[in-house]
């Protein structure tokens, strides 16, 4: 197993919360042979006694050097997994990434074979969770044609997947202008002529959709209803594939939506019918 440096369990890194910041920590911890107790983006409310806190200033050069090392010395999927894990924004993600990389510098290209290792599995788990939501969201983003010819899609994903969704739609909708708005994080990806960037974003007024847009929403709803086979109705299965928290920003009216959250808010913990 790991043999941490003598004092490493008493050390916590503080960084600016950026990916480059975390990669700078990876650089520092590798150089000093430290496996930190924790990594946080904010000053601790109640600092621990006999515990060291190191504030690491983000250094783009060091960070890029770490990223290069990940891409060349670790397994081919390692960088993607590290990035996905970071985008999960889970409280444990930074620590998972540093543990994974520390082990990685020793195991190199065989790192991902250690699927049951405690420094590998949590990172794989978080990365898979983000990948699952990314895949799901590729299908569930719903664009609405807003006045001015811009396609607008509101989303509220669990993970920060906007940077992962954008390349897909930038290629697919290369001739259109679109905005995908992550309401919870108050950011949006905007794209025109195939080029996209992510900016802070807030809607100042609600959008009035034109008749054509409303007509297509009605057509889609009609299709959504008529394509279901009545004799095979299976709402439980539907909910399993399409969890309730994703319903809010869909265009289709799923029956039962109205009575469960009258204010139109997503409900995360609705008691389901007793399982059979």
């Amino acid at each position, binding site marked *: 197993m790991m043999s941490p440096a003598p004092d490493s369990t008493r050390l916590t890194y503080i960084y600016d919360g950026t990916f480059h910041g975390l990669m700078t920590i990876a650089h520092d911890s590798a150089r000093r042979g430290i496996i930190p107790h924790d990594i946080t983006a904010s000053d601790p409310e109640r600092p621990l006694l006999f515990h060291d806190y190191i504030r690491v200033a983000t250094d783009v050069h060091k960070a890029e050097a770490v990223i290069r090392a990940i891409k060349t010395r670790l397994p081919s999927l390692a960088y993607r997994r590290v990035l996905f894990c970071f985008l999960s924004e889970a409280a444990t993600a930074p620590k998972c990434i540093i543990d994974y990389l520390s082990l990685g510098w020793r195991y190199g290209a*065989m790192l*991902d*074979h*250690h*699927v*049951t290792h405690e420094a590998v*599995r949590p990172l794989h788990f978080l990365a898979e969770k983000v990948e699952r939501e990314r*895949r799901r969201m*590729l*299908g*569930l*983003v*719903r*664009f*609405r*044609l807003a006045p001015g010819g811009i*396609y607008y*899609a509101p989303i509220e994903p669990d993970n920060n997947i906007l940077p992962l969704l954008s390349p*897909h*739609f930038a*290629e*697919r*909708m*290369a*001739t*259109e202008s679109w905005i995908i708005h992550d309401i919870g994080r108050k950011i949006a990806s905007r794209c025109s002529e195939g080029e996209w960037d992510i900016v802070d974003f807030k809607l100042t007024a609600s959008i009035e959709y034109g008749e054509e847009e409303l007509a*297509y929403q*009605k*057509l*889609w709803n*009609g*299709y*959504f*209803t*008529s*394509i*279901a*086979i*009545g*004799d*095979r*109705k*299976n*709402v*439980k*299965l*539907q909910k*399993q*594939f*399409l969890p309730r928290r994703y319903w809010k920003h*869909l*265009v*289709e009216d*799923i*029956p039962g939506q109205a009575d469960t959250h009258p204010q139109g808010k997503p409900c995360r913990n609705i008691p389901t019918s007793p399982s059979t």
Partner: protein
Amino acid sequence: MDVFKKLEILSSAAKYDASCASSGTARKNTPGGIGTAVRSGICHSWSDDGRCISLLKLLLTNKCAYNCAYCVNRASNDLPRALFTPDEIAELTVQFYKRNYIEGLFLSSAVYRNPDYTMEIILRTVALLREKYRFNGYIHAKAIPGADSALIRRTGFFVDRMSANIELPSEKSLNLLAPQKGKGAIFTAMRDMKSAMLDYRDGNRPSRSRRGFILAGQSTQLIVGASPESDHSILSLSEALYRGFSLKRVYYSAYVPVTALDNRLPLVGPPLRREHRLYQADWLLRLYGFRAGELLSEKNPNFDPDLDPKSHWALSNMHLFPVEINSADYEMLVRVPGIGLRSAQRIVRARMVRALSFDDLRKTGAVLKRARFFITCGGRHLEKDESDVIMIRERIIGRPAPRLLTDARKRNPGDGQLDLFGPISFTRRIPTPLP
């Protein structure tokens, strides 16, 4: 008739086609075009029957010249009829696509006037989408049995997948329930597609076409429960189709009574459990290296509705178990109940760097509830007795035996779905427990 009404009629008419895959091809957008194709496919929604919606599934028309007994669109059925124009379909597809409702189009049709005429409109529609609308999303089109092979070939260069549905799993049932369709015409269409695919692979392709010929392959559909074929004959047919016609997928559709009373057809609810077991077995054929003859036989022609096909197979082949997780080859690992493709891959990777314990095995995603009876880890067992097949069966199902037997006795033996004595009788065939 407005588009809304047409869409309602022609999408409800298309819903009995089970195929919804948008996978199998990867395509980049073209300059000035719209759309891409993603190799793994993308689901966009789920309707309240729990089935995924990936493609805009439409009939060109439900005005049908044929009168197949099982089909909702049969000529003698009294229902509203409609016909889309190619432009209407193309416009709907692109507008839905731009809003990210769908991954592409699945265009099917009733036989309108005659097969050639219908096929020609399908060809015109997909050509319009690709050429005028520069649509690069996924398209699945129906090959109409009986249509000229040149038309089918030309259509294939515009689309990602084509399918001709066999529907009834035997010639006898086809002749009885769909006399106008005929087995010959269906298999001719499938053969046309296969030979065109082979031609394309050999480089024998029209010079002006830069597109591939149905790169996502062809598929078909079998209706389950409308006719008396056993699971064994259905699965054997599927196996023959995968081998003989290189099909990518066979879909199974539990028969839903859709037409007015016809004494040639059953009047029960759709056999969903049976359909589910057939899909599981289909996966075993395509991805797990099983042959149909291993799973079922003339003597044991139907799946146990309570038990998944892999567990069913394992319980009849206890002499092959237990297998040692740390040394069994991949082909054997995937045959263990509770170990799927992903966990088998993880096991093979993980054991390259260290021997696995039962605890590690759990972390690979293997389901020990089922796997525990069939494996050892480092020579250790999880169960004392791995020879009591009846006990194992009960524990896999998760129900005590007495209730199971009473349930079975209560069920109507005439529905052809329950092999009442199957699971008990094979205890006799099992060799004495391994030392």
